[in-house]
């Protein structure tokens, strides 16, 4: 029997869509550890599309959620607000 240990982690990222909106994506990873507990290999488990967000204007708020996010191609974090949707996990973003 293998003595290889594993652990998991979850990353929340935001992807810009062509229509100007931003899609929340939750990415799950599986990490394989050696005997010392160091990560030796990681594997993408799944990515789940979530809510749609947009860039907030100065006084714009959302009751569905807000987040500050730094896009890799930008220098300053931006405030994103969730659009009001009848959201159910796994239902939206199939066309991702």
């Amino acid at each position: 029997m293998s003595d290889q240990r594993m652990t998991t982690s979850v990353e929340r990222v935001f992807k810009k869509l062509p229509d100007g909106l931003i899609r929340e994506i939750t990415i799950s990873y599986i990490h394989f550890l050696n005997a010392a507990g160091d990560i030796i290999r990681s594997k993408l488990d799944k990515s789940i599309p979530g809510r749609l967000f947009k860039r907030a204007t100065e006084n714009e708020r959302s009751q569905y959620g807000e987040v500050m996010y730094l896009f890799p191609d930008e220098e300053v974090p931006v405030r994103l607000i969730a659009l009001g949707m009848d959201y159910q996990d796994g239902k939206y973003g199939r066309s991702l």
Partner: protein
Amino acid sequence: MENTVAHSNTKIFWLLWVTMVFLLCLIFSIGDAQAKSSKDFFYKEMVINVPISDVDRVITDYSNYYKYFHHMEVSRVLKTNGDNSSDCYFEIEVFGRTFWAKVRLDRTYVSPNHIIVKETTYDTNLKELNGQWELTKIDDQNTLVVIHGSAKPYMLLPDSFLKNLLDKEVSAAVRRINRLLTQ
């Protein structure tokens, strides 16, 4: 000798037959598993560059649905129950057969920026039919339109095939609505 050959041929024939049935069962079960992993059979989202009130006007114009849905032959409002509820009749022709449904469409204003039009079927020759429009205001000139739901006839069709067909149908319908509103 001839008997042995004939017997051998029969065995091969039955072996091929059983293998074919097994493969068909496998294909159908994969299709079902894919469909069950997602809650909806069709799904489309699109940003339309017009105010939410304009999109709302077109989406709730149920008698003109035949203009947007390619396979829809008849769309008729049977009865209106106040401002936000209508009973409608839709007829769809596909696979050389006519499918019909009497449905109730209820519009709900979740907030001024968020409208849901939910469809409930009360009489149909389909096995299953449900759907929902969702309009979300992005800003004064942009609206997010989402349509999702499922439909299933009493026919032996792989769910993945049906899903693909319905996805194409609603995608084309939303594109037509977009063209109508933005031109």
